[in-house]
């Protein structure tokens, strides 16, 4: 058997939402599980466990990545941002705000992955067309919305960011 019968635990410290967070976990602990179960940041969801659906997308040094395809130990040198780091219920970030205004979600399970993905996208492309917005979200699966209102949310988020800048 190649599987370890007993597992060595490692001290892992990862900067999540600007705070250094620590836990003792095995080397094979996925970043998604580390965030969700060791740190209690359950906003990051796991939909397929193999990097296809995008629900587990977090920002690694501001770039969107699948946390289900990354080990917690390998995240140590990086800054991780989860959906919890992009706003709160009382002070939502622009992408979060846009989703609530445009009915960009139904069950909400895939939403955190979209919010992180779109946040990174708008940093690079602050003023997308509808077509570009659709392209930007076409790596994430949603089974509820048919995407139309997510496209709308991307455009609205771009507006909200512009408005915030103008103030």
């Amino acid at each position, binding site marked *: *058997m190649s*599987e*370890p*019968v*007993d*597992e060595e635990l490692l001290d892992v410290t990862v900067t999540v939402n600007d705070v250094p967070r620590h836990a003792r976990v*095995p080397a*094979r*602990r996925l970043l998604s599980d580390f965030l*969700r*179960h060791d740190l*209690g*940041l*359950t*906003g*990051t*969801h*796991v*939909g*397929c*466990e*193999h990097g*296809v*659906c995008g*629900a587990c997308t977090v920002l690694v040094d501001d770039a969107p990545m699948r946390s289900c395809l990354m080990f917690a130990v390998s995240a140590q040198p990086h800054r991780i941002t989860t*959906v*919890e780091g992009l*706003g*709160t*219920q009382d002070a*939502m970030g622009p992408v*979060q705000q846009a*989703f*609530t*205004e445009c*009915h960009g*979600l*139904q*069950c*909400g*399970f*895939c939403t*955190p992955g979209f*919010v992180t993905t779109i946040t990174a996208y708008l940093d690079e492309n602050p003023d997308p067309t509808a077509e570009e917005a*659709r*392209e930007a*979200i*076409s*790596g*994430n*699966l*949603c*089974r*509820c*919305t*048919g*995407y*139309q*209102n997510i*496209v709308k949310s991307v455009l609205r988020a771009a507006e909200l960011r512009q408005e915030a800048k103008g103030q």
Partner: protein
Amino acid sequence: MTTSMFGAPVARREDPRLVTGNGRFLDDLGHDALAAAFVRSPHAHARIVDIDVTDALEVDGLVGIWTHEDLPGRVGEPLPLLIPHPTLTHGRTAYALAKDEVNHVGEPIVLVIARDRYVAEDVAQRIRVEYEFLTPVVGIEMARDATALVHDDVTDNVSAHMLQEVGDVDAAMAAAPRTLELDLSIERSACMPMEGKGVYARWDDDNGELRLYSSTQTSTGVRAAVAAKLDLPLAKVECIAPDVGGGFGVKINHPWPEEVLIPWAARLLGHPVKWVEDRREHFTSSAHERGQLQTVKVGFDDDGRILALDVKLWHDNGAYTPYGIIVPIITSTQLLGPYKPGAYRVEFWSLYTNTVLVTPYRGAGRPQGCFAMERTIDAIADELGLDRTEVRSRNFILPSEMPYDHGLLFQDGRPLRYDSGDFPASLDKLKALVGWDDFAAYRAEAEAAGRKVGLGIGCYVEGTGVGPYEGGHIQVETSGRVNVSTGLTSQGQGHETVFAQVVASELGVPLEDVHVTTGDTRRMPYAVGTFASRAAVMSGNAIALAARNVRAKALRIAADALEVSADDLEIVDGDIRVKGAPDTHMSLGTVSVMSNPLRYAFDEAAKAATQFAGSNDPSKPPVADDDEPGLEGKDFYSPTQATFANGMHAAIVETDPVTAEIRILRYCVVHDCGPMINPMIVEGQVHGGVAQGVGGALYERMVYDESGQLLNASFMDFLMPYASEVPVIETDHLETPSPLNPLGIKGAGEAGCIPVSAVIASAIEDAEGFPIRSMPISPVELWQLRQRHAAGDWPSLARTRHTPSSSTQTQEDR
């Protein structure tokens, strides 16, 4: 503002928590729980000879391993058959853990519980199961041939055979001037919610009580089933559906094996236990739907009026029938859509195969029925050289004929009787929206540029809001906070918002004061569940009735206190006031204080209701004989029959002349679900339904090989649409009220996906000039059809005889 809440596109109450990562889905709970994993059968059909766990026992962190022989009493008995039917003569259900035999890949055999899921999977991997192979039955044809059997004692693989006939089909068919026959097929797909199933159970040893969380569409159903299986009093079991990451039907079946085993293990171990389904498990161990073969024979006159319709269908029900034969029953009844079929006969056989079981998936048999009917109407139009919308019009049930009774029994065991609908008006709207009459010019333009385009249409009627009942409970706190509960569950439909809108309108309170709880048996133990587009109709009306009770009580108490007639009072923004004299008023919160005579003052407001506050009449008891304390009300809504929503879709597709790639250029929807509580949410439901329909029409299929292996059991291989595959959806609405319920509403949840395969088939057929009889269709399959067509072994549409221009040209091009 409060009175206009009903019908307003208000933003959803649930969104702020969901967009900030504060939702609480099943796996967000219970971080201290032990984790379960399963050894599942890798074979489609086999006898279990031996299970060897020796190698697994040394894994650090293992808590326990159980097989069927370890399961006591009812836990070890077959799972219940939820919906018996007289024609389901050979219903079979699985065991929570397989006993002796496995009947599909993914069937659970061994339960493992360990410190965490990683360890549980390590253990499962070390368990050796020895099998003796049996012949797997895969596909409807093989099941129908019955050369091999799924269950030894079901000698023809038929679980149910059902026949319904209205009128004399043989006579009407014989007398019909024209007839056509069609062979049709639809492949399997699945609900595929982004969150799989999951169960988390806590046993409270001090009180002998079980608290169970399940990602389910029916918490009351799971509660009752688990209490029965575990031999616990119902009062000692509570079940809560937390935030649920999509359902689309698969989470209505219950109890799933895990819903029995996880609570059982939690009680046995005295420790919380959780199981969260992984994606592969969801593919092979939950449920699929859609797979059917159909034959249609139709008799009609020279004007295209249907005189006789004779339908046979063979339904693949997978390995077991825990949810009965609801799907083929719905296909066989809802197939009729907005049309009068003349004499109608439908006969179906529900067949066992060694594949994962089949339970309803959004649309629940309707997409298949709609496909059969709409292909038939298109074929009639083609045969006669008539416009496809004209043939539809000529067969429509008219508004003047409502209510219209088809003379059949529907899925709820009640008459298939349409309550309302204006099909001609819907069709007019759809034709205007898509530009039906301008399409010929558009096509000519496209053809001149070397492009192939086609226009398709599909119409459906959907029985929604089936019973038996739902309930609503409303309680107004002394602060004016309004607590609303209903027992059915939510999977993204925005119930917290729409039910709050209903209450805000009925009671006259601000929306933000209303707080809705769904799917929690502690709050509302009587409920059925969320399926069949029923939540708004059933719980919406129950809650409206409950709100009216609360309103009546509030007005009675306030009228007493203000010494006016209740008729002279109105409630505006949570304040009860005299109409025309708003200075004479009291808040709903104050009425709540007065409704509950107190001995103890817990705050300033409560003081007013205490016994020495001087407001009581010593000649009467504090609570009247026919009254109850508290400003609360409860009611139930139980309809005599379903209410029937309808819709019509049209699409323009383009097929690549070389690669046969299929692109949807436009997709138009006209939808009528009666008055909409929240049009934004209805629209969202339509969008999502269409997207799933597009998946079912062009991309999604379950690819089983002949040994019963599901070859595409992952998101890499099962192609669900991304944003790049879903067209912009253009919508228009009709709001024909239902006469059946107080709010006049109809259901909307499933509508979007029902006609999509029919519409896309219609459009591809129109683009290509030859019939499309099987869905989904991939570019490869379309390309192969073109080859066959060019070789002369796939027919052209008859329209080539009527208008020999475009299609023959296409054929020559090849």
